Structures are given as C-alpha cells and as structure tokens.
C-alpha cells in the first residue's frame, strides 16, 4: 500500500488525508504528484471519471480541503446554464480565500467576460502565486451548454494566463466528450469501482460509538453478503446499513445474544435483510415507513408498495378508447376489416398468420393511428351506439395528458391528429376485464 508522500506538504496533514480517503491512496498520490507544489503550474485540465459513487467528488473535496488549496467547487447540474455556472464560479472565487464582504452581484454573460472578470478576481484575491483549482462536478452537463464552454474550460490556463487547473468529474468516458472541432486533451484519470473488500473497509469505518468496531464489521459483512449481488453503490449501501442496524442490534439489546454471537445474529437478520432488498432498495416503500415497520415489528405485507397500486380506474368510454387505441396501434390496417366487421370473410385460413403477426407487432412497438380509425374501432367495439360528442374528444386529450396515449406529429391542427398507445398489454388486459 503506497503511503502518501509529498515534499510540499507536512506529513501530519498527509497522514490525516490518508485516513480520510480509505482505498483511494493510489489515486490521491497520483493527483498529488500531478498537482505538485502550491506555486507550481500544473496540467491545465484534468479529467476524472469513474462509476457512480466511486468517491470522485469526495476524494477531490477532501483533498483540496485538507491541503487547504484554493479551489472552487461547482455542480454543473445545479447551475444549468452557462451564465449561472460562470457567475457561480466567480462568486465562489470572491469568497474563497478572503474575509472581505460577501460578493456583490456578478454579471457575466459569456466566456469572454468570464476570462476578464476571472483575471480581476485572481489579482484581487492575491492568488497569483498559487494554483487555483476549479472543480466541475457532473461535467457531462457541460456538453449541453454552448459549444465553446467545454473547450474553453479545458484551456482556461492558457486563456487567462493564470495558474489555474480545471478538474472535470464525471461518470462517462472522455471519448463521449470530445467535440467535433477538436480541443485540448485533458489528463485522464480513472477511478475504479470499489471492490467488496474496499466496501467492507469503508462501511465498517464509521461504526456507531456504542458498539465495537468488530461487531459492526460483522454486521457489514452480513449486509454485503446479501446486497452485494444487486447493489455496489456505496451510498445506497450506507443508507441500507444505517436503516437495518437497529434490527441487527435487537437481540443484543434484549440480552438474548452477546456481541460475539454472530451466528445467532445472522439468523435473526438475514430474512429481514432479504425483505429489505425487495422493498426499501427498490423504493417500493420509503425508508421512513420501513423504520416504522421495524419499530412496530409488523408485517410488511400490510404495507403495500408503490407497484401494488397498479390498477387504474377509468371511465367507461375511456376504457374502450384505450382498448381501441391499443388494437389500432398493434394491428395492421388491413386486418381491421376482418376483426371489426360483422360479416368478415375467411378467418380460418389466416389463423396461423395472425399469431405470427402479433408477436412481431408487439416487438415492433405501437404505430401511430389516425383519429378517424381510432374512433371507427371504438364504435365497433362498444356495444351500444356512441355519439361522437365533445366528451369523447376531450377524453382523448385527457388520456394524452395521463400519458396513456401519446400524440404523434402535431404540426398541423387540421391534419387529422395521430395517436399512439403507450401502455402495455398487461395494462390493457387489466382494463378489459
């Protein structure tokens, strides 16, 4: 295991840093060596990617905070336009090192302004002699902003002529970022997923103070045994660990088992965890409901999850409309005559064909249906006579707002509108009953 060593920083700080970022030592030392000393110019842009919750943001933040490097940390999802993003960077920059009065409103409309204001800010804050780090979290959002933003950030050092490094954090690979016109290639760094051993180590790290570390580690071991197959997300696992720990402790609290009695504890918790996997993990029931359930020791069968309420109550004609839309979307036009006319011709001959068609149609997905055809099928499947009243038409639109139908191609009002049925066969079956 490589110990963190760097001439520029005191050993104590590095040691603290190491304890804060378990299992990421190699990445941290890599970053440190790239960063160099405070006043040294470093690589203009660094691109860090890795799967969800592989510690990118956390490592970056702790690294910059513990070493007290001047930095700006911005989430690109939150600042959804380039203007907001740039302004946010400038505001943070004004606040970051100085104790001066809170920043006044900054107006920055484009990158040109940004470069100018950025230079000003850096001089104002006396940061010329240090490397300034700008961390852009969730950098994949940058691709959706104006085309110049990403390349400009990548070579911000060159543009501003200041000692600045831009760090991009994202979950996708660099190849998906590279604009057509070409740009400055950043230094690419990969954060691999945590292995099960890493997860064990990290999760056991923050054990509650009332219980010993070993006890908690055993619990984490059991938890990982159940959940590792389905979930490797550290955050989610942490959440689950916190939720289920009290249940695990129950026998100990009641005095039925001591902390060493792992087997007994395992027997107690295992079915419980499996239940949790089916419910809480899928967000079928919320975590607060889960906690209450634990508290009451009730049966989770009473609490119905979100998917249990799948049944939708629809008005009479809406049901038929939806069924008609479904039939129209999945059956080809030429079969209409055969299916919906009272006196259709031969049907036995094409029986096999029909079956074949149906499967392929379901694989192909729904096709758009003109309104007239939809209504014609509706009239033929409803037993009684239906008047084409305004209510029927308004029901079609309300079905569209409910996302059960969808409108296809709405360029012309006069052109007969075309609809698509977006619900599944199971849904239709449930309705048709």
């Amino acid at each position, binding site marked *: 295991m490589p110990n963190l060593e760097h001439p520029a920083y005191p050993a104590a700080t590095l040691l603290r840093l190491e304890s804060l970022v378990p299992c990421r030592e190699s990445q941290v030392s890599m970053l440190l060596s790239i960063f160099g000393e405070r006043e040294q110019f470093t690589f203009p842009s660094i691109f860090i990617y890795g799967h969800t919750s592989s510690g990118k943001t956390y490592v970056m933040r702790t690294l910059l905070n513990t070493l007290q490097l001047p930095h700006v940390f911005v989430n690109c999802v939150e600042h959804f336009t380039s203007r907001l993003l740039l302004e946010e960077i400038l505001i943070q920059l004004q606040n970051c090192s100085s104790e001066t009065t809170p920043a006044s409103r900054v107006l920055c409309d484009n990158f040109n302004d940004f470069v100018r204001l950025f230079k000003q800010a850096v001089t104002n804050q006396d940061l010329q002699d240090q490397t300034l780090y700008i961390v852009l979290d969730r950098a994949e959002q940058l691709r959706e902003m104006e085309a110049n933003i990403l390349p400009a950030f990548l070579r911000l050092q060159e543009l501003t002529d200041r000692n600045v490094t831009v760090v991009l954090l994202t979950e996708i690979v660099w190849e998906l970022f590279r604009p057509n016109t070409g740009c400055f290639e950043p230094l690419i760094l990969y954060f691999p997923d945590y292995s099960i051993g890493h997860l064990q180590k990290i999760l056991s790290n923050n054990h509650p103070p009332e219980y010993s570390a070993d006890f908690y580690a055993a619990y984490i071991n059991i938890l990982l045994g159940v959940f590792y197959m389905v979930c490797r997300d550290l955050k989610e696992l942490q959440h689950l660990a916190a939720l289920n720990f009290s249940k695990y402790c129950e026998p100990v609290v009641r005095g039925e088992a001591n902390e060493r009695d792992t087997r007994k504890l395992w027997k107690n918790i295992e079915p419980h965890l499996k239940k949790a996997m089916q419910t809480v993990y899928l967000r079928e029931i919320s975590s607060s409901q889960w906690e209450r359930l634990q508290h009451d020791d009730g049966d989770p069968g009473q609490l119905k999850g*979100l998917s249990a309420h799948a049944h*939708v109550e629809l008005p009479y004609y809406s049901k038929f409309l939806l069924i008609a839309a479904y039939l129209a979307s999945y059956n080809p036009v030429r079969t209409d005559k055969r299916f919906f006319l009272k006196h259709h011709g031969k049907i036995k001959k094409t029986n096999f064909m029909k079956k074949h068609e149906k499967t392929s149609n379901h694989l192909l997905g729904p096709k758009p249906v003109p309104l007239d055809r939809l209504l014609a099928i509706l009239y033929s499947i409803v037993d009684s006579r239906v008047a084409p009243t305004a209510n029927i038409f308004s029901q079609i639109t309300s079905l569209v707002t409910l996302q059960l139908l969808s409108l296809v191609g709405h360029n012309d009002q006069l052109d007969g509108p075309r609809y698509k049925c977006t619900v599944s066969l199971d849904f239709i079956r449930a309705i048709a009953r």
Partner: protein
Amino acid sequence: QQIQEEMNKQFFDNLVSFLRRSHSEFQEKATEWTCRMKSREIPAAALVLGVNVTDHDLTFKSLTEVIQNNITPYVTSLQAKDCPGIKNLMQKLMGQLMNCYVDADSSDEEDCAQISQNRVRCSMTSLINWYENITKKTDSETPSRKRTSSRHLQSPPVVVIFKDMESFTTKVLQDFIVISSQHIHELPLILIFGIATSPMIIHSLLPHSVSSLLCIELFQSLSCKEHLSTIIDKLLLTTRFAFKLSEKVLQVLINIFLYHDFSVQNFIKGFQLCIVEHFYSQPLSVLCCQLLEAKKRVNSLSHSQCENIRRLPSFRRYVESQESEKQIALLTSDNSLKEAVQKLLEDLHIYHENYVPVLKCLHVFTSSLPKYPLGKQIRELHCACLESRVWETEDYESSLQLARMLNKSDLVTMLQKCVEIFVSSSGKEFDKVVEKLKDFLAQFEKLEGACQEQEESIPSQKELQKKTDLYHLQKTLLELKESRRSKKLTKFEMLRFEVVDFIDSLVRNYLVPADHKTLHEIMYFNTASALREHLNAAPRIALHTALNNPYCYLKNQALKSDGGSISNKAPDICIAYKLHLECGRLINLVDWLEAFSTVVTAVEGPNGDAAVSDQVDDIIHARFIRAVSELELLGFIKPSKQKTDHVARLTWGSC
C-alpha cells in the same frame, strides 16, 4: 338564487372536509419529516388522485390552503405546462415562493424591490439565501408574529407540489430532484407529486439513482365513485333542499360521470345547470323552496299562476279524482285552489321526509344480497324507485325472495341498522315502525333464548331414557332431533317472513315514484333531453345539421326544404357542403365549381340565356372560392398534393 348559493357552499364544505380526512394523515407525516432531514433523502408524498383530472385543481387548492394554515407558509404548486425546462421551473418556483412571502407581510416595500432584483438570477443558491433571510427574520421577529410562527414549525419546510407528474418531462424532474437533494440541509424541501394514473409512474419516470434520493410515501385519495355517492347522499337524499332531480335527469348525469369523465366537478356543474334550467323554464318553480316559505308564497299567487297550476298534468289528475263539487271549486275559485295546493305541498314534503329513510332501509336489505338485483349503490336504488313502482319490477321480486333466505345474524344486524336509520330520521310516522322493528328484534332474541333452552333440555331427556335399550334411545333421539329442527326452522322462518313482509309493506307505502304525486312538477326537474343537449355536446353533429339544414338555425322560411334537394337560396357554404358530401375522398375543384354554379343559377336557368351559363360568372366563382375556403377553415377539406386541382376530404360519412 339563494338556494343555489347555499348549495355551492355546502359542496365546498363537503369537499374540503373530505380532503381534510384524506390529508390529515399526510400532515402528520410532514411534521415527522422535518426531523428526518439528516439523511439526504428528500421527503416526498405521492398522492394518487385518480383519473378525474378536472377535479384536481380544487383538490390542490384546498390542499395548499390546509398546508398553509397548518404547516408552512411556503407552498408552491407547479404545473407541467409551465415548466418545459429546469430553468422555467426554477423561475416559477422562486416567483411563487417569494410572492407568497410578500403576501405574508406585504407592508415591506424593500422586499418587493429585492424580489424584482432576485428574479434575474434564479438558482438554488439565491433560493437558499432567500430562505435563510426569511427564517432569520422570523426568528428575530417581534412577539406579534410569534403567534403565526408557533402555529408553524421552527424551520418551516418548503412544500413543492407537482400537480401533474405524468406530464413533466423526465429530465426536468430528475435535475430538480438532484439539485434539491444537494441542498436538502440548507433548504428543507418537501415534494408532493400529484399522480393521476398509478404510482408505477414514479419508477418509469425516474431512474433508480434519482428515486433513491427520494423518500416516497403513498397516499391514496378516495376514489371518485365514493366521492360521488357521498355527494348524492348529501344532496339528493335529504329533505333540506326542495329541488329534486327526476329519474331520467339523474340517470343522464350519472351516465356522464361514469361513462365519460369521472369528474365530480362536472357532476356538480351539471346539477347546477339543472337548477338554473328548472327555475328558468318552470314558471311554478317559485314554490320550490322550504315548506313554510312555499306556503307563504302560495297565498300570494296571482291568477295566471293559479291557471298554471291548473294546467299541470298531475294536478289535473288530482282534480279528476275528486268529487264534482270540489272539482268545480278547484277549477274556478283561486282561494280553494290555494288551500288545496298548500295541503298538497305538505303532502309532498311529508312524502319526501318518509321516502329517504325507507329508501335507506331498503338499501340496507338489498345491498347485502348476492348479485345485487337492485343495485349495489343507493343511487341505483334511488333511480329504480323514481322510475316506476319498484315493487312491480322483477328485480324487486327476486330480491325479496333472496331476503327470505337470509340467515339470522345478518337479518338482526340489518334490522338494527334500520332502527338506527328510522330513529335518526325526523319523520313522525316512524315511531310505530321503530316499535315494530324493535319488536322483531326482541322476538329474534327470544328465539335465540328458546333455542338454548331446548338444547339444555335435551341432555335431561337423554338421562331419562338412558335406562331403555340402545335401539330405542337412538330412535327417540333421532325423532327428537327431527322435530326440534323443523319446529325451530318454522318459528324462525315465520318471523323472517314477517319481517320481509313488513319491509315490503313499508316500501309499498312510502316508495311511490314521485311522478305519481300531485304537484311533483314544482320540485322535480324533468327535461333530461335538454340537459343532455347542454352537457353532452356533439360538435360534429351540430355542424352537420347547421350546414345540411340551415333552417334549423337561421329560421328563415325560404330555407325550409324537404331534405333531399339542394335549394339555391341556402347560404353558399351550405351548398358547397352538400355537394362535397356527394364526392369521394378527393374532390375535383372544377367539377365542384360547375355543380355549384348550376345549383346557384338553377332559378335563373329557365329565363337566362345559354351564353351566360356556359361560362361561369365571376361573382359565382368568387362566392364558390369563399365557400370552399370557409369549409377549409372548418376542417372539412384540405388542399392535397396528390393531384393538382383537387382537395382532400377530411371527414368520413355524414357526421
């Protein structure tokens, strides 16, 4: 009219109380959630509201009111159509939040200025700043504000309501949730999703990485059908309102509700329309009010109004059933008429008073029968009773027969329910009924006691016969058993028959359909066809009749035609329309024009010379073009690219 206003108020109260019930639970949760802010999950509530989208507005309105009164002043509701992007969403959110704050104390002029400044920058940070500002302010506020802040929580959460979750684009929701989860520590947000279809939509809209940020709890509001039945219960099945609906009208309203939109809102609107229509079209509707008021009004009736009463068919029937002297008196003297009317109105009132409890009682019996021969809901029963003499229908026969086969415990509980209904109702005539029912109950109890006694007596007999031989013992026991069973059954059965007969007699006495009552026209709104026309609009048919038969709307004698032929006096557009009906999918403009000109010049044909008709007149050409473009505007045709000089028809058939 004031009755209507009163009724509106009642609707609203009703609705709000209904909401309170369904959301009181929710409020408790909201307070609990504030304690759970430590985690990164955003508390969220999923309200499943059912597909009646039109009702949702009102629901949300009262929900916001409730929340504002009890939990937090910061409530915003967002609609999908306002938020196509995350930017618009934030703008809307901030605008609403800051406005509602301004509403809270509108005296501060500085705040307003600040707000307009803030609107330039709509981001989460400014929102958080704003939130910190106001929470600080409320903390340092003078004690005069303490009353409100004590009612709210220490740090009031910000509630964001997404009115129609289905219509939001996935990206906007995702982004918003991710952003707010970043700031949940600084800004306690609570999300409420209004869901019309099923909660599955959350999973289909949000990926797991986002939904894991939410702590969703599900709340199901009452289904709209139940809601409807409570409203019918409160409105139609009471004596508080004099206005009643006849069977057909009620059927139309319920059909619209069940077949079309499930919207209680629309049902109420339809009901209001009925009220307006009734008071507008029926001259005698002045008498449609509370009994005392009506009696007063009867005294001040004018002669013409009396004549109106005499013309009522139900009153005529009544007159004809009287003796000849009285007939003359009723038909000639206004005073005797007024007296009679007062008496009749009183009768009607008493009839209503008696009708409802008996109906409820019958419903108690029929609703538990297998297969529901008389309908599951009380509204179906109500309709059946209004329609005709209910005891003459087959369903009633079968339900009585089924009732005769009920077991004892059910019967007893039903009888108890009936007693409750009758006791709670105000009718004076029901004292006897209640007594009778109680008597039945007592008899049942006695019967039970008798059974036990008999059972007790058996072992003693057994002991007596112990000494005789086994065969004899068996035989006698069997006999005993047999006799006991038949005896008990007959006793119980007899009682059961009695009960059912009694109910039957009640029904025959009190559930007479309203049309058989004299003067029912005053209280009952009867023209279902008008209502159907108003509520169930048929635009295509209306358009077709307007174009096909212009007389229907224009009322011009010249336009009165006998259908088949096309008259040249009709407006141009009608002629063009009729001609276009005869064509196929693609219409040749030249042919159409020719046909048009022949029709228009048909009258001038005989005396006009051939040279003119050979070439189409410029004016006729212009008129034709105008008619065609009008048809295009109405959406009957559109220019087609398939063939030159052709237009495509957009409608099929003739309606």
